[in-house]
């Protein structure tokens, strides 16, 4: 607004200097006529510069207020970004490696299950994925579950069935906290979906414990240092060491091998439908590609008369008629 009135005033000055005085034009620009006489090239430059400075300044101020992303936490509190690993089972046409799932379940049972529950996985889901029916039944029967009330209304213990869920290590969250120095070991059923970075994060966390915390890192009592854990102080100590479990298929049980297997197993427990989903997805992609190609062909076929026709115009008055030579 300011700049525009300045421009108008220069025009008024020019008109006055040329001696062409138009009363109506003068009247139209009367709003700025008072400053017009006082304006000099220096004043105009100053006004323009000031206007630009105000515009740039207000934009900068606005960006400063609302532009930058807000981070509630420092990078240390966010945790180190996990490395991206080339997981085979993440590829769009690959299933889980079920041998790895079986090994991963073994790692879960022998290592993780002492603190972490896997409450959404019943034994029946393991059948045909990692174990045979008989193996799953035997595993289920090793645990005791509450039975239905008997005739006296007493609840007795019964051996587990295929439909029973994997037993939790603690009776409830409070018991879990009490046993773990106040920290609650999270349920692992959906942990791959529940953490940023998914498989990469959990693998990095499991294998990322340094020998000792770096100099200057503050590690509170009862916590362990892990750079991948948000806040770097994690209640879980390093659990995976070489040769901790003995794989029944003879795979060398290195730390990273066990971490990789258990991560793949946890990914299965979070997304047990993945194998089927990807297979169906492939079928859908193939058939819709074929149908799309078909529809393109039909469109071209139907449009070909319209695309190749030729319009001629015969002028009603004189002119040569087309086709006559």
């Amino acid at each position: 607004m300011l700049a525009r009135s300045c421009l108008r005033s220069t025009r008024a000055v020019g008109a006055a200097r040329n001696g062409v005085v138009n009363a109506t034009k003068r009247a139209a620009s009367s709003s700025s006529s008072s400053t017009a006489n006082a304006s000099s090239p220096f004043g105009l430059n100053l006004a323009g510069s000031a206007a630009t400075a105000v515009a740039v300044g207000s934009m900068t101020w606005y960006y400063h207020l609302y532009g930058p992303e807000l981070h509630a936490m420092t990078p240390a509190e966010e945790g180190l970004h996990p490395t991206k690993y080339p997981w085979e089972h993440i590829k769009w046409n690959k299933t889980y490696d079920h041998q790895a799932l079986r090994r991963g379940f073994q790692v879960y049972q022998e290592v993780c299950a002492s603190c972490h529950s896997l409450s959404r996985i019943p034994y029946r889901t393991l059948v045909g994925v990692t174990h045979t029916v008989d193996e799953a039944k035997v595993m289920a029967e090793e645990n005791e579950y509450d039975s239905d009330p008997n005739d006296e209304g007493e609840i007795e213990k019964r051996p587990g069935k295929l439909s029973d869920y994997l037993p939790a290590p603690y009776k409830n969250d409070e018991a879990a906290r009490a046993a773990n120095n106040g920290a609650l070991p999270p349920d692992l059923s959906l942990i791959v979906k529940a953490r940023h970075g998914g498989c990469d994060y959990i693998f990095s966390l499991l294998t990322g414990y340094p020998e000792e915390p770096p100099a200057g890192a503050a590690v509170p009592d009862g916590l362990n240092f892990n750079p991948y854990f948000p806040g770097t102080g994690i209640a879980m100590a390093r659990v995976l060491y070489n040769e901790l479990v003995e794989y029944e298929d003879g795979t060398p049980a290195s730390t990273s091998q066990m971490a990789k297997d258990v991560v793949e197993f946890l990914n299965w427990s979070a997304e047990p439908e993945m194998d089927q989903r990807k297979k169906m997805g492939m079928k859908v992609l193939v058939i819709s590609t074929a149908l799309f190609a078909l529809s393109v062909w039909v469109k071209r076929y139907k449009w070909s008369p319209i695309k190749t026709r030729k319009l001629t115009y015969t002028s009603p008055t004189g002119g040569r008629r087309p086709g006559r030579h």
Partner: protein
Amino acid sequence: MPAASRPIYNTLFRKNFVFLGVVFASAFAFEMTYDNAMDKLWDRFNKGRQWKDIRAKYVKTEEDEE
């Protein structure tokens, strides 16, 4: 209509119920062959990874249980 396609018209399209039957039958046939072919392709992509590939190692037969 070209003479060659006349028998196709007579056998498949002329009567509506025949035509409908042909549509249903061919849909079933296509579905089965397509699913079979895709499953084969899928199994080739995932050779050795699926449960059915490793199941034989863990299934106990009658002889094993002696």
